[in-house]
């Protein structure tokens, strides 16, 4: 048994949410740089260059990349040899609260979503997905998810007969309907299979995969390529003001599913695709 204190968990969570909100990942940065060279539209190029400027200012001056510092989501792999001293959920939420207060990050969480919609003032509760795995480490993957893009995400319970063509069309249609709203160029995460809940969660996780890396299964990477090409042919462009860079990447994951179904969840992420990972 390896002992881990609640305080260590709190500190790690805090560190990761601060990192994610101020420093964009190398893969996203490089993708935007590449796009700014390839982009045909003048306005599009200007937008991409402004985005690159913004990353620099955010990192150097410790200002949030985007004011929508999102809801705090964590994907955690908890080693089964780990014993936690203290309250797991409380530690994580304390870490989020401290990051958002000390980091001057916006608190965007409201209590009951229909009636009061009162700001919780802590950006909690965090949304926590924990897998219990062999070993004695705790691996964290955190992402602050903004809602301009989250609001454009969709789920379809497709028929097996709809096939890969149906899936690609659904992905492209999702991006088309979203238009400028999710702050293109976007990163699209997709999960095919599972159940409504599993597909949605795994689609969110798919947005965190490295930009530029395909699914190792060639049938799925083919769908990724097709979807990305069709999306960029839509002409929506950076900030939706026209251009050939509407999405930077499409990541498709898949899970075993029921014989009667083919759930397809599409999670849209804006160009400020912020995430950070770390291990205790």
């Amino acid at each position: 048994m390896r002992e881990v204190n609640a305080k260590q968990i709190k500190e790690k969570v805090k560190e990761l949410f601060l990192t994610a909100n101020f420093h964009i990942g190398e893969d996203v940065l490089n993708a935007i740089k590449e796009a700014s060279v390839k982009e045909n539209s003048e306005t599009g190029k200007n937008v991409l260059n402004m985005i690159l400027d913004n990353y620099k200012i955010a990192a150097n001056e410790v200002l949030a990349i985007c004011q929508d510092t999102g809801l705090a989501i964590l994907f955690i792999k908890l080693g089964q040899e780990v014993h936690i001293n203290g309250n797991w959920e409380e530690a994580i939420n304390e870490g989020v609260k401290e990051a958002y207060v000390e980091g001057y990050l916006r608190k965007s969480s409201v209590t009951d979503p229909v009636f009061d919609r009162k700001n919780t003032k802590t950006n909690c509760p965090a949304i926590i997905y924990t897998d219990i795995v062999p070993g004695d480490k705790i691996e964290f993957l955190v992402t602050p998810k903004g809602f301009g893009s989250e609001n454009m995400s969709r789920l379809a319970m497709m028929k097996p007969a709809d096939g890969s063509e149906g899936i690609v069309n659904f992905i492209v249609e999702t991006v088309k309907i979203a238009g400028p709203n999710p702050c293109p160029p976007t990163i699209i995460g997709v999960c095919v299979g599972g159940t409504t809940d599993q597909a949605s969660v795994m689609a969110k996780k798919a947005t965190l995969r490295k930009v530029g890396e395909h699914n190792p299964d060639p049938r799925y990477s083919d769908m990724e390529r097709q979807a990305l090409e069709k999306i960029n042919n839509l002409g929506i462009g950076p900030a939706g003001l026209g251009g050939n860079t509407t999405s930077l990447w499409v990541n498709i994951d898949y899970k075993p599913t029921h014989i009667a179904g083919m759930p397809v969840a599409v999670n849209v992420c804006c160009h400020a695709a912020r995430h950070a990972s770390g291990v205790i």
Partner: protein
Amino acid sequence: MEKVKNIKTPLSDKLIQNLKAGENVTISGYIYTGRDAAHKRLIDLLKEGKKLPIEINGQIIYYVGPAPTPPGYKCGSAGPTTSYRMDPYTPTLLDLGLKGMIGKGLRSKEVIESMKKNGAVYFAAIGGVAAVIAKSIKSSEVVAYEDLGPEAIHKYYVEDFPVIVCIDAKGNNLYESEPPKYKKK
């Protein structure tokens, strides 16, 4: 890149009519902020026949919920929020003399018709370049609804706030005119 025109608030009707969709401009002067909750409160007050906490006539509203202000800065990161959520409230404010809106994303047919009728402009600020925009905000004070936190109405003094004229007072709409130019089969 073309020389960028700087426009000062309050915007005159003549200036508004001359702004064309697609123009890159920078805005200097005072603007108000407001998003979902603040808009709802304003409209509720109007329905009750009560006075509004801010002057609407001749003003610009920026749809934003900024991050808290770090020490040494006048404002935290402050990029635009998605405008369509304010569409239900906008025609009423345009009828009261609202002259400009800054946000991002599509607007409804009703909003665009009201803009044409009332002579107003919709500017797009670029989503996600929140740190860049923060630096153009030179002063910030909460003027209403402090309890709403980031959704409060602020009065900003901005200098060279970069925006694009997205929908002009004649109804020309960049979101409609530009993407088809880059569309491929």
